[in-house]
């Protein structure tokens, strides 16, 4: 799976939680999930669990803590699927 494909899927997942309408055109790897997308911090675990389901990976608590931006999420997924 390429970085681009992972990015698209991540955007799709984030869309379910963000109060804003987001697409791959209006967000970047540096976009903050909490601040820029206005996603409640309590929902971060749900998002990471969706990553697990969508990419068939397992993420532990410490890895989940590293996810702050869209890029963090994409990189974590790439690390896990490789």
């Amino acid at each position, binding site marked *: 799976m390429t970085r681009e494909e992972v990015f698209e899927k991540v955007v799709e997942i984030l869309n379910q939680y963000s109060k804003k309408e987001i697409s791959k055109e209006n967000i970047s790897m540096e976009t903050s999930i909490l601040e820029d997308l206005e996603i*409640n*911090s*309590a929902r971060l*675990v*749900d998002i*990471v*669990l969706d990553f*697990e389901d969508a990419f068939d990976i*397992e*993420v*532990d*608590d410490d890895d*989940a*803590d*590293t996810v*702050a931006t869209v890029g963090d999420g994409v990189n974590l997924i790439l690390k896990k699927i490789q």
Partner: protein
Amino acid sequence: MNDLKFKERFALKIQYMAGWVTLPFWSTLLIALMRFVGRYRIQHLREIRRYYKNLKRTVEGPILLCSNHLTKIDSLILNWSLASTWSYMKSFKIFSWNLPERANFYQNYILRTLCYVGSCVPIDRGGSREAVKKSLDKVTYLLRKGHTVTVFPEGGRSRTGRIQEDKFTYGVGRLVNKVSNCHVLCVYLRGHNQKNYSDIPHKGARFYMNMELFKPESAYSGLRATRDVANQIAGRLVRMEQAYFAAAGQ
């Protein structure tokens, strides 16, 4: 597994000792303020204290108190309700540590001192991950050492006056899963005239308090277990709130 350095563990021990030694002074002062200035009363205080005393005697393992959150002094009221100053003098371990928001309670010298002796571990909500993790590591350590800790799983005072399940932080689930044999005491606390959130309870408040002890178990592991346990706690607190309003005829 210990995530704290010796220096940090030692600092907590010193804080604990300082709190215990000075307890009669600040506890008397705060209780007097609550009783005579706030004119607060706890309904069924004797039964509540008997229940808590019995719990501490019979439950093996640490107890994490999870409460709804409507005012900035909820943790004070909780500690006042659960045992007398004399009981805390005899066993200060039953006095609950808590995690106040640094921005709210560490702005002046007096509050800082009271928080220090009053067993507080400040937390920077929305702060750096390292800082938040450090605070959580401290309370994890304290729980493992058999201390009692209070957390407000909504992460702040409810803006609606009711428990906000959607605001529930999963950190509470992680805390429970990191501490073996951890029991959760769900507490529903509310002043009779408390319609919404506020800084302090309204004058003359009579506090209703209900408690339910349980030991969360999850069939999952990792993050799913964290979420599952947090949801179990949230579910209990919501049911306790529903029971309160049903009894009040609302």
